[in-house]
């Protein structure tokens, strides 16, 4: 019997095995697989991901060592909130999963003057509700509340989001706005620091050294009086961003804009800094909304790559929506420019 369509196949096989059907169904429609053999196949598989080996790395060095000895399909596993579904859907295959969540030191949040370093095993919910980070980088906490849902943030990690560089992800955008730097560990205890701007310099995907591990990411803390804003347009709460924007602003005593930072994501596969728009804002009065609207238009237009179209939105919709998102983030930042640091804001 030939399967008439994926809906019918799902009912036949049951919701539990729908994932294996989903992977197969383009072939099903093309080649006319026999239904009975598919049912047999999925009940025999029993499990959604294909076979891999799971290893708990003892230390970060151990992880890098194992990575160097493995084939190219080996993957680092942190929170796994994107990796495990991708493996379950069999859209990717891995020979080896290296769980780094129990490596000593990776779950630490450390602060130096003007900078907070978040370890690769720090979960999003922990960072979102950390009083230290709420005081020193409120932009990061606000943005985290837009990442998926609380039930996912309880397991997902901040650095995992950065490494994954999902086009609809919020974390890479904040990383650009806050000049984040990635602390990368290579084999033989070689350490490297890479700015987020370099990691996301290509059109898509994080450009990281082969067989490396991001052990942590360092974010700049906001300075006294610096305003910040984040805005996002998504299909429904918790969904990926169609477009999102993170912005920071500093004003001088006369209310003129002294510095501005605008990072946009979702519109293109990788996020970008809107440097022309940033320059256009400097010296302008922060009270006049039209400057922000003009900068927002510039920011959307100066994208280095074409706007992304997918089944949720066209590129032209994204580029128009981006204008509104940037304007909103900038005005939000302007309204928060009176934000005070409250003492040493986490610099102990």
């Amino acid at each position: 019997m030939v399967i008439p369509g994926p809906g019918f196949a799902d009912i036949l096989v049951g919701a539990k095995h729908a994932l294996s059907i989903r992977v197969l169904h383009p072939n099903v429609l093309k080649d006319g697989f026999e239904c009975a053999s598919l049912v047999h196949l999925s009940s025999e598989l029993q499990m959604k991901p294909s076979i891999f080996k799971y290893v708990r790395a003892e230390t970060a060095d151990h992880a890098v060592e194992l990575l160097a000895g493995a084939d190219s399909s080996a993957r680092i596993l942190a929170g796994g909130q994107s990796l495990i579904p991708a493996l379950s859907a069999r859209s990717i295959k891995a020979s080896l999963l290296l769980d780094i969540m129990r490596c000593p030191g990776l779950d630490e949040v450390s602060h130096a003057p003007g900078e907070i370093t978040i370890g690769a095993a720090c979960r999003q919910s922990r960072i979102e509700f950390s009083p230290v980070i709420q005081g020193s980088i409120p932009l990061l906490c606000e943005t985290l509340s837009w990442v998926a849902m609380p039930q996912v943030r309880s397991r997902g990690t901040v650095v995992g989001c950065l490494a994954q560089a999902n086009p609809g992800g919020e974390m890479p955008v904040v990383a650009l706005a806050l000049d984040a730097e990635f602390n990368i560990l290579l084999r033989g205890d070689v350490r490297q620091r890479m700015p987020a701007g370099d990691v996301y310099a290509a059109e898509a995907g994080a450009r990281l050294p082969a067989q490396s591990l991001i052990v942590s990411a360092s974010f700049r803390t906001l300075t006294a009086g610096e305003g910040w804003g984040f805005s996002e347009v998504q299909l429904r709460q918790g969904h990926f961003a169609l477009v999102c924007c993170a912005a920071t602003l500093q004003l001088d005593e006369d209310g003129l804009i002294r510095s501005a930072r605008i990072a946009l994501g979702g519109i293109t596969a990788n996020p970008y800094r809107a440097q022309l728009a940033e320059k256009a804002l400097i010296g302008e009065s922060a009270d006049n909304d039209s400057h922000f609207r003009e900068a927002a238009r510039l920011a959307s237009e100066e994208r280095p790559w074409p706007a992304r179209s997918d089944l949720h939105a066209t590129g032209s919709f994204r580029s128009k929506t981006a204008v509104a998102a940037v304007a909103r983030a900038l005005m939000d930042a302007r309204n928060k420019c009176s934000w005070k640091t409250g003492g040493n804001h986490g610099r102990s």
Partner: protein
Amino acid sequence: MAAPDWTLGKPLRREWDESQTALRMTVNGKQVQTVVADRLLLCDFLRDNLELKALKVACGEGACGACTIVIDGQPARSCTLLALQAEGAEIFTLEGLNAPEGLDQVQQIFQQQHALQCGYCTPGWLVTVYSMIKRSIHPDSPEVAQYLSGHICRCTGYRNIWTAVRRALGAAMDESAGGEK
């Protein structure tokens, strides 16, 4: 080493050549000790091997919330985790959170408000509500919408669920305030 409290319902199936790893965890207050295939998902382990059938598997990618459980005090998806990632963790499924017999207050409110129809997604909602009560989230807090966005219901529309959850949170707050007096 104390003997595990749990007898596995079914033998674990695996492919002939695949890697297996030892696993220990606490589920609903009971010790579990076993060996599982590396690629076994936590939701399948809980449902198929421990026969805890309250959690449901629907989307398999963390979007729908039907498989929500509590791991180390926080609500999480069990379909986006490997069983081995929960090594040493303390897990509660709905069976370990609700009243052992009859309906508890939250379930009664769900019933009164018609916050379920087919009931497939309900165990997930309940686990989230119990976690919200534990965190003493105020019924008017914007966090309520965030938590509820983690669940999909195809029957009710969300109006009744929204009302029921807020009533359940309010009732729990009244109760804890009453207890303090």
